[in-house]
């Protein structure tokens, strides 16, 4: 007993004559080191590329291009197109997401799990899957439009883009609104019913108003996805040019990076603005009280006045989604999808064993490197934000979230500009060139960095929300028993946020595997990435190969998600589970 106490008292003895020392939390050196590392990493991941991009847009050539964006009639039409696309996707995606979420949470029907899975598929699917399938089914020679009805339909342009983007991005809105609907206190519905309101009336007078912030938030997120998407407009845009495709063309076709930066800036500003509004205004308006535990069980709605229309719509949409993904799956096994439907394994041979296999291996390896880094970095940032940073927490949270708020096209151009040449600080080279022809690791490092940047925010989000549910006293108890900040994080916090970590890593992996827009600016002949390979195949009309790529990619993502879960649960946490 005495030995331990003397030990504790020893360092104190030196300090006793010193007068009061006022240092807020500054005594925790491990936290200072951690914050410094995180700040440097974030600077390299997001800060430097964005600053370079802003610099390029602010250069003479950039300013000229920027001026042209707002004066040239052609460019104004492009801006108009972009906004129109964003609005349509925002409205349609939110509606579809809401229908799915409402049916899932509130309606009584069989097959809820299937519906949930169906709504989640787009998250693991690469960006071209839907677009290519839609062309195959509904294009000029579409199996449905031409094959069955004999139309020469034109899916290229706005209508096709809206359909494809809605189907690709509605899961965002679905997840958002599902969470909100689930946390709505069912006693509110009961109260309304007790006051004599019918189910339909309750829906319009109680449920819907409570969801307004959620609906607005979903709309904004989808609006940004709509204006920032590059992949689908490239394939499906036709004459309908949007800002992202224009920027892509400027950089890769005209080699005019300053103009690319200028176009990027025009996408970046509304995207970040919408993100800010969504984060800090809509979320504050939210009247839904999230207590963390269900307050009761909702009685599922069986009334046909609501069930029949909602389920009919959801059923039709589901059918459509199933058809699309079935096309993706089947399309890989036929000679020329929609034209020559003869069975073949050529496409899969190409992807799995032929020239395409390099892309498969490269992409998977890079994503596997990036996912744990992104997931853990997200958790560390979340921990710093929730527990350690006080007033600076908001700043770090915002910078971390930029990876999501900044459109992929913009990020890619920023990377291409910033890391085309070696990075130097005060004349000392700290990084070799990461992008362009002479890039280190053939661009692999830059791609991993982009993957981390893009996937970090989701881990950060889930980390923050799960940390906020852990009572600070649990960490203080660890401190009180003699653990420093680092030990507490490792031994107590991390195991408690394992679910968030798993989902963070999983999502990071899925997101990395399916990311396209920033990657197209960074791939080099030495590194092949599946998504950009799919783009190449689609552009040259080899849909079969594209479908095979998509199927393989989805399969890899699903397999590795499963594997990640097992590894993290069984190895890292040794099967320890807990209930809170």
């Amino acid at each position: 007993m005495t030995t331990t106490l003397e030990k504790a008292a020893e360092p104190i003895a030196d300090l006793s004559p010193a007068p009061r020392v006022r240092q807020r939390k500054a005594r925790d050196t491990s936290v200072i080191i951690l914050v410094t590392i995180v700040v440097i990493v974030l600077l390299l991941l997001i800060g430097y590329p964005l600053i370079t991009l802003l610099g390029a847009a602010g250069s003479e050539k950039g300013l000229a291009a920027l001026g042209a964006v707002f004066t040239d009639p052609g460019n104004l039409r492009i801006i108009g197109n972009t906004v129109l696309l964003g609005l349509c996707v925002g409205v349609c995606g939110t509606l579809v997401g809401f229908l799915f979420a409402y049916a899932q949470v509130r309606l009584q029907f069989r097959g809820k799990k299937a519906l949930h899975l169906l709504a989640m598929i787009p998250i693991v699917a690469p960006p071209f899957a839907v677009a290519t399938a839609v062309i195959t089914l509904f294009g000029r020679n579409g199996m449905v439009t031409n094959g069955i009805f004999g139309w020469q339909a034109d899916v290229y342009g706005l209508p096709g883009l809206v359909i494809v983007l809605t189907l690709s991005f509605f899961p965002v809105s679905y997840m958002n609104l599902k969470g909100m609907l689930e946390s709505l206190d069912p006693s509110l519905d009961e109260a309304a019913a007790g006051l004599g309101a019918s189910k339909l009336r309750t829906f319009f007078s109680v449920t819907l108003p409570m969801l307004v912030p959620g609906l607005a938030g979903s709309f904004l997120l989808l609006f940004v996805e709509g204006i920032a998407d590059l992949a689908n407009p490239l394939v499906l845009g036709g004459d309908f040019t949007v800002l992202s495709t224009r920027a892509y063309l400027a950089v890769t076709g005209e080699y005019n990076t300053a103009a690319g930066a200028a176009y990027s800036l025009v996408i970046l500003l509304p995207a970040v603005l919408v993100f800010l509004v969504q984060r800090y205004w809509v979320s504050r308006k939210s009247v839904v009280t999230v207590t963390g535990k269900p307050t009761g069980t909702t009685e599922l709605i069986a009334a046909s006045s609501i069930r029949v229309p909602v389920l009919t719509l959801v059923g039709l949409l589901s059918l459509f989604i199933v058809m699309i993904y079935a096309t993706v799956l089947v399309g890989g096994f036929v000679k020329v999808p929609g034209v020559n439907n003869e069975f073949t394994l050529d496409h899969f041979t190409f992807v799995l064993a032929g020239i395409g296999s390099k892309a498969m291996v490269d992409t998977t390896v890079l994503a596997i490197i990036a996912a744990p880094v992104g997931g853990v970095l997200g958790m560390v940032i979340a921990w710093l934000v929730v527990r350690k940073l006080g007033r600076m927490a908001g700043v770090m949270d915002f910078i971390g979230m930029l990876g999501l708020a900044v459109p992929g096209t913009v990020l890619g151009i920023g990377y291409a500009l910033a890391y085309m040449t070696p990075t130097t600080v005060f004349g000392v080279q700290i990084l070799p060139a990461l992008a362009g022809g002479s890039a280190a690791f053939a661009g692999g490092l830059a791609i991993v960095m982009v993957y981390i940047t893009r996937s970090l925010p989701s881990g950060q989000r889930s980390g923050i929300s799960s940390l906020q549910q852990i009572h600070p006293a649990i960490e203080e108890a660890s401190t009180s028993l003699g653990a420093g900040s680092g030990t507490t994080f490792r031994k107590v916090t991390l195991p408690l946020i394992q679910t968030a970590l798993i989902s963070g890593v999983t999502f990071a992996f899925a997101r990395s595997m399916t990311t396209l827009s920033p990657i197209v600016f960074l791939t080099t002949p030495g590194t092949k990435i599946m998504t950009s390979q799919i783009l190449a195949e689609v552009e040259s009309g080899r849909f079969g190969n594209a479908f095979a790529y998509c199927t393989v990619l989805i399969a890899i993502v699903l397999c590795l998600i499963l594997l990640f879960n097992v590894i993290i649960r069984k190895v890292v946490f040794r099967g320890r589970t807990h209930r809170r």
Partner: protein
Amino acid sequence: MAARTAADTSTIGLSELDEFRTDEPTGRITLRSLTKRYAGSDIAAVNAIDLEIRAGEFVTLLGPSGCGKTSTLRMIAGFEQPSDGEVRLDEFVMNTVPPNKRPMSMVFQSYALFPHLSVRENVAYGLRLKKTPEARLKEEVDTILTIMNLDAYADRAPHQLSGGQQQRVALARALVMRPKVLLFDEPLSNLDAKLRITMRNEIHRLQRRLGITSIFVTHDQDEAMTLSDRVVVMNRGRIEQIDSPDVVYRRPASVFVADFIGRANFLDASAVAMVAPGRMTVHVLGQTIEVSSHPDVTIDSKILLMIRPESVRLSPVEAPVDGADVRGDIGRVTNVMFHGDTVEYEIETASGSIIASVSDPSVSEILEPMAVVRVGLATDRGWVLPATDRD
């Protein structure tokens, strides 16, 4: 279920306790003009308090929510940095010592057990951090689990235990570190009423045996009274009174303390004469009586006479008893509340409204509303306070 109840009510294993005893009482805590101001607030949460806690003493910080008691405890633990002033352990200033290096252990209101670790691992956590050899660690953990009557639950997860058991694990986890000071942050307030009393008694016995200096934060006056050597009553960031429980109860330093601890009647009284320092005669309820008074009270003070409800004596009007302790005025019963062990009356008198508590009432003795009674005060129970500081 039966097993759980039995374990909850069982007492701790006192025979093993001696292993944990210290040769001499540990840890003297000194607070010097300790102050805490939170960012964005002009009012100090803790306002320049001075406090000396003797080694081995059990001190309770008692007060309403927001009085600064928890902030004070957290500054002692090191979870909050003082804005001003200092915390000393023995002769060492602790201000710059991080919380994990202070030889103190805290027991939290929410228990704060690590949900991902078993009971045994929860208790072993701190020892593992100290790199205690495995054999010694096992021995220490086993001993403390036995003392706390938790052997049977060693391999369970915290969520499989009842509230009382969880609290004992939290206590075991703190004790196994052999701290110089034990800090309790409202540890009993999540328990139901009966269990709270059981745990209160266990903590009391344990602390008396071990002689570890203990600081206990609570807003429950019963806990403060039964556990403490001294009670520190706090209000608005300041200490109102530091005294033993009986003095705090019988001779509160202010109207606030009188009101916060137990219940009190404040009667308008007028000073008649100072008999001696701290003794005076006052006129109240139509009588002149001699009572003890607050040191600040002078013959010219505007005064209030504090009397606890149980010190009010009632007798029939028509048969005034001459007994020394029942004198006084006529009053009318306006409200009757039956509690079982006591019955309480609200009585209107010329000196103001009085609450009287009569213990062990029989059915025939209970007065009806509107009944007229003679109201008197028990001998030497009254306490005179200056009236000015009532807020």
